[in-house]
């Protein structure tokens, strides 16, 4: 009976390379490499314009046995701490209320990213041809499943043990109305799993993981600790122990295409698009969560960004690859401007649209306003004085009948949604890199906040057809939309989102919103 080519390959390999007598992991790893197979007829469902070399290495030489042992120890340490010491000391109730709200956003959104990364790395496993590279991607598939569970667990823990379960327990049900959700899906979903396989790797591994997980998963633990949260460092630093292999996977993806002619044509454009895509969302959202969602400040967000994104990712990853033709991202100048100002712009809009969220926001105190002005000269004149006006008009009190969104309408500062990133922006009241651009295709208008997204849209407009909330709910009254979009607590009428975290402050209900008579309008229709 004829034997299969795989069996023959294994038999031949055993002829020249006997099984190791020891059980040393790296010896086994070396031995396993002889069990390769012929890729001449390899077919992938997920194509790429690049040719991925078939001799690419995996830097950590992992075998399944060591992987499973390593990960089980990580989980044992993490869950052991959470379920024993941290529960016993009532750690979840020691978290500052403002930070409790930030974790609703950070952990829920990261969970979505991890979930999509399962598919992304499965796709890369299918596209790669080098056995070691496949091994690295396969380990990452398993990691991403672990991380999805970890993020889900930390929300479960906060909901069960902590101080305000609403938003921790079921945030995803608000995804149709929350203006931050769609942008998050653009970076954490579309960017990771749609299009060219190598381009997805650049988005996920070379930029998302090698660059932005450091502020998102490492630096966040400093802010968490400073604000009384001991759970997040326990879980997130454990998540990050897998990310270093993912960064290596991303680097080896670049190694595998470095000598391909296509790299000289496309790599810098793909890198710049990925950098802009990821930074456009992460930069303002993380800055907003860290600074406006904390009581105790670690350092200005722009410094965190400058260290982890510009100096270290830029210098150590991208700068070192310069001799292989990799260039500084063309969009870096705008990204740096955003890192300084865009999170202040976004907080202002997020606070104005607070009823559509699944978390509570708080206006800066006088002490915080001083901190902002000291670290971002010009902050008070742009933002601080507006917050004073909003507070004086009773924005926190349901009896006031005032939503900050009214301030934008009264002062003729329309809020648009960037078609590509889905990030809201107000071009007439912004210090970040956003400016209004409007294009029309087949009778439909599209707004853009920057040239980088506009270029991406021009090359494949069919990719960016997601309706924004102004288009989706045009003509609808706000309280109706909130009720329909599950934005209320378990009593059925109190909003999950609130414009304060005060224990003494009254909570807003659907009736309070209905009295204001706020109706969605698409700003593009009036242009």
């Amino acid at each position: 009976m004829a034997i299969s080519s795989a069996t023959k390959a294994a038999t031949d390999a055993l002829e020249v390379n006997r099984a190791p007598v020891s059980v040393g992991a790296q010896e086994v790893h070396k031995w396993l490499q002889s069990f390769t197979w012929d890729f001449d007829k390899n077919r992938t469902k997920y194509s790429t314009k690049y040719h991925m070399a078939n001799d690419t290495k995996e830097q950590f030489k992992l075998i399944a046995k060591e992987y499973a042992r390593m990960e089980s120890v990580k989980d044992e340490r993490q869950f052991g701490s959470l379920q024993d010491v941290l529960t016993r000391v009532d750690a979840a109730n020691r978290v500052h209320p403002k930070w409790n709200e930030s974790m609703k956003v950070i952990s829920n959104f990261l969970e979505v990213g991890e979930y999509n990364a399962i598919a992304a790395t499965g796709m890369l496993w299918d596209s790669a041809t080098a056995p070691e590279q496949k091994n690295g991607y396969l380990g990452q598939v398993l990691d991403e499943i672990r991380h999805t569970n970890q993020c889900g667990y930390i929300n479960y823990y906060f909901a069960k043990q902590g101080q305000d379960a609403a938003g921790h327990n079921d945030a995803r049900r608000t995804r149709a109305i929350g203006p931050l959700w769609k942008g998050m899906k653009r970076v954490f979903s579309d960017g990771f799993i749609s299009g060219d396989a190598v381009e997805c790797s650049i988005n996920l591994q070379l930029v998302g993981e090698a660059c932005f997980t450091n502020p998102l998963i490492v630096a966040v633990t400093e802010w968490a600790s400073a604000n009384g949260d001991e759970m997040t460092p326990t879980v997130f630093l454990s998540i990050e122990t897998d990310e270093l292999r993912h960064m290596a996977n991303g680097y080896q993806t670049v190694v595998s295409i470095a000598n391909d002619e296509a790299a000289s044509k496309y790599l810098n454009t793909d890198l710049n698009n990925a950098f802009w895509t990821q930074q456009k969302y992460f930069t303002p959202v993380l800055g907003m969560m860290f600074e406006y969602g904390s009581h105790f400040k670690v350092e200005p967000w722009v410094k965190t960004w400058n260290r982890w994104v510009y100096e270290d990712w830029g210098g150590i990853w991208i700068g070192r690859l310069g001799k292989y033709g990799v260039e500084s991202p063309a969009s870096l100048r705008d990204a740096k401007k955003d890192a300084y100002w865009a999170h202040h712009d976004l907080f202002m809009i997020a606070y104005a649209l607070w009823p559509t969220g699944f978390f509570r926001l708080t206006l800066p105190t006088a002490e915080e306003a001083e901190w902002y002005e000291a670290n971002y000269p010009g902050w008070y004149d742009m933002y601080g004085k507006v917050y004073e006006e909003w507070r004086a008009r009773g924005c926190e009190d349901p009896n006031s009948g005032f939503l900050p969104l009214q301030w934008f309408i009264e002062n003729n500062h329309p809020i648009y949604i960037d078609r590509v990133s889905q990030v809201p922006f107000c071009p007439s009241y912004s210090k970040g890199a956003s400016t209004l651009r409007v294009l029309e295709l087949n009778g439909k208008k599209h707004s853009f906040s920057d040239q980088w997204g506009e270029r991406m849209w021009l090359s494949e407009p069919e990719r960016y057809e997601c309706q924004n909330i102004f288009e989706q709910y045009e003509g609808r009254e706000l309280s109706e939309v909130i009720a329909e979009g599950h934005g209320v607590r378990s009593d059925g009428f109190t909003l999950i989102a609130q414009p304060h975290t005060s224990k003494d402050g009254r909570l807003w209900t659907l009736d309070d919103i209905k009295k204001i008579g706020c109706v969605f309008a698409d700003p593009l229709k009036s242009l």
Partner: protein
Amino acid sequence: MSTSANSYNAGIMAKTGKDFADEYFAEKNQVVHESDTVVLVLKKSDELNTVVEEILLGSHKDQNRTLVVEDRAGFWWLKANGKIEIDCREVSELLGKSYSVYDLLVDVSSTIGRAYTLDETFTITSELMGLDVKLQDIH
């Protein structure tokens, strides 16, 4: 406070307000600059605390004088020129128990640079492994 160029708040990071903004937005800082440094984030644990205190800042301190280690609450943050190397056979001897390179990876949280293992040694280097330098297998 450390005066090393590799410390957490070195250079521009020590500046505040307008001084920080002037340097941050300076024309020369609108493109990335190549760096020969590496960064390592180690999750605090019994084993990693020993690695940091007894080996990297202890017996091996003279091997790389550019190494800076800072306590950032839940993690140790390390930055050095060139490379940082940890031989787990030494860690094992110090801990008095079996401790492989995969045990070390349980608590290595993040890397900026090219990190790899070879036998029982963990290395993070500024070298471009796989491009300028071949990645080795155990002999």
